[in-house]
């Protein structure tokens, strides 16, 4: 299969606006990325950086009456944004499936877990109730729920957090989707369970040869599994490239900030450096580079000109920053994820 045939999702210039009484919220601005089979794209950023909204827009889960969406979301050649809602519904849950952040809130508390998975099966299949139930049990077993047949008859409150997230993943896999979007799938879970869920997602990706979008604010999660990383801030892409490059040669001050504030095994707590300030208002974002008010390296052009997302050098990956290339290399090298010098 050629690389173009393996390309699943091609998002170009995705822009999402929410008109509110206080003004227009510029949730996502001009975001472009690609996802191919067998690839995990990590989308990283703080809360309110537009990660989740981008994915909800791809899934068509934003209320079209109250949202302005532009750009293109090409899924296997079709633009999902121009698809009528009933055709989009045919794709949702079948070709593109989603796992959400909080497994405690995402399963309906009043229906049996197995029935909820069976319902997902029946939404896109005429297989009948028995086939649906069998599929539900099969998948629960597949994602590692012990005694799947009897546990399928349980209600969500009888499941632990990790089991619920497994059930959510089982539900998402019902129709062997081409793309699995995981929106902070481990945030609500215990650390030990987090690793299991990430392994499960990895295993599923390899087994079914699907594309995964992994949204998270935890760089550690991305470092373990992603093949590509997109760093978002204030609804814009700050840096986008292969995961190894991002972690070894980060080019954007915001990515440096994220790496500095990330705890690792080697790093003592005092060595963590938080990013000063908080994310900007999306109703009236800062002029120029949206990160400039918090950026320790800002200089004259930053508040005036918004830096375009470009490749500063041939061997570099995409970033949106005015800093000269040698400066990026110098400061980025200090942040390389491989460094151990400040370990005790």
């Amino acid at each position: 299969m050629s690389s173009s045939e393996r390309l699943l999702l091609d998002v170009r210039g995705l822009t999402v606006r929410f008109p509110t009484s206080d003004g227009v919220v510029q949730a996502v601005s001009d975001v472009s990325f690609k996802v191919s089979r067998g690839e995990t794209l990590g989308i990283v950023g703080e809360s309110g950086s537009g990660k989740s909204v981008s994915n909800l827009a791809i899934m068509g889960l934003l209320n079209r009456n109250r949202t302005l969406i532009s750009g293109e979301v090409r899924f296997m050649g079709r633009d999902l944004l121009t698809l009528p809602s009933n055709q989009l519904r045919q794709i949702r849950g079948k070709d593109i499936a989603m796992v959400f952040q909080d497994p405690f809130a995402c399963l309906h508390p009043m229906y049996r877990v197995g029935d909820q998975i069976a319902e997902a099966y029946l939404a896109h299949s005429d297989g009948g109730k028995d086939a649906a139930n069998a599929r539900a049990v099969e998948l629960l077993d597949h994602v590692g729920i012990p005694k799947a047949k009897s546990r399928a008859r349980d209600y969500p409150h009888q499941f632990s957090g990790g089991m619920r997230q497994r059930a959510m993943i089982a539900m998402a896999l019902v129709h062997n989707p081409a793309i699995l979007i995981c929106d902070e799938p481990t945030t609500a879970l215990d650390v030990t369970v987090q690793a299991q869920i990430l392994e499960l997602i990895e295993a599923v990706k390899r087994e079914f040869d699907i594309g995964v979008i992994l949204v998270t604010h935890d760089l550690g999660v991305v470092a373990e599994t992603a093949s590509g990383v997109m760093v978002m801030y204030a609804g814009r892409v700050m840096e986008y490239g292969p995961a190894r490059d991002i972690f070894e040669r980060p080019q954007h001050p915001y990515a440096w900030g994220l790496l500095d504030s990330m705890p690792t095994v080697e790093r003592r707590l005092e060595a963590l450096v938080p990013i000063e300030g908080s994310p900007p208002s999306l109703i009236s974002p800062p002029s120029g580079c949206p990160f400039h008010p918090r950026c320790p390296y800002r200089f004259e052009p930053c508040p005036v000109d918004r830096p375009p997302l470009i490749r500063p050098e041939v061997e570099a990956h995409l970033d949106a920053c005015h800093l000269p290339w040698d400066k990026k290399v110098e400061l980025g090298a200090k942040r390389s994820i491989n460094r151990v010098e400040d370990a005790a």
Partner: protein
Amino acid sequence: MIFYIARRLLWTVVVVACVLAITFAVFYLLPAGDPALRFAGKSPTQPELAQIRHRLGLDKPWYVQFGKFSKNFFLGDKFGWPGLGTTYAGGTESSVKTLVFNRAPRTLFLIAGAAILWLVSGVAIGVLSAVKRRSIVDRLAMSFALVGISTPVFWLGLMSLYIFWRRLGWTGGTGYVSPSDSVTGFFSHMILPWCVLALLYAAFYARMTRNNLLETLGEDYIRTARAKGLPERTVILKHGLRASLTPIVTMFGLDIALLVGGAVITESVFNLQGLGYTAINSALNQDLPLVLGVVLLASVAVALANLIVDILYAFIDPRVRYA
């Protein structure tokens, strides 16, 4: 599940026993003056009083009286089960049970018809309103709810009688026609009271359904349902409404129970002479055994409604069963 129902059932018995004790205390122990005098109706003679006193066991200590009172209630007296005692109002001895049970069907038919109307229309309007939020449909529905909640029942009752009965002649007038006498007469006499009583409640239920459903539709599991690719109708009716149903069921049970003794205004405007009307009338006549009978029946209705609501709860929300 069986354990849950048994536990609720036990509680119901306890509640009914408490109601019995309080009712007893209020009517036998608390009122100043001779209970026999109160029981005897208007202008009794001395021998009558003595007879009543002996008959009611008022010459015995209070605990013996309470024991007899409870025993009669649970096991029945000479008029059968449940023993509600005897009224001497009007100078003749008659069974409270018979009086109450004669009045009960009128009230129960009134409540049943109205309840179906308000539940169906209220929930339907609420769902429509929530789904079409901020549209003209929503605004019209909520204006209707405001009118329904604010309009006094007696005014609405009289106006509807004037228009539909006197002016247009579409319905029967006031009074009650038993369905065993004439089915069409029954419906033509009941349709206005049903609609008038239902309007107030329908308005409440529409608002409550709308608010609950809007809240539920913001839940994460609704987004999950949409992400599965379910049609919007299924998302709203199966996933949204199911979760919004619990408070509605609670209200429904209690509203019905409270109406057993409390549909006084509707009963009066349409001259149905049901239980509420009987309670008011007997209170005005100081016919306490009859008041007692209606109060007991109404409280048992509330206790039973609570039981049914609790059991329904467990069916609707599995989390209740294991709590």
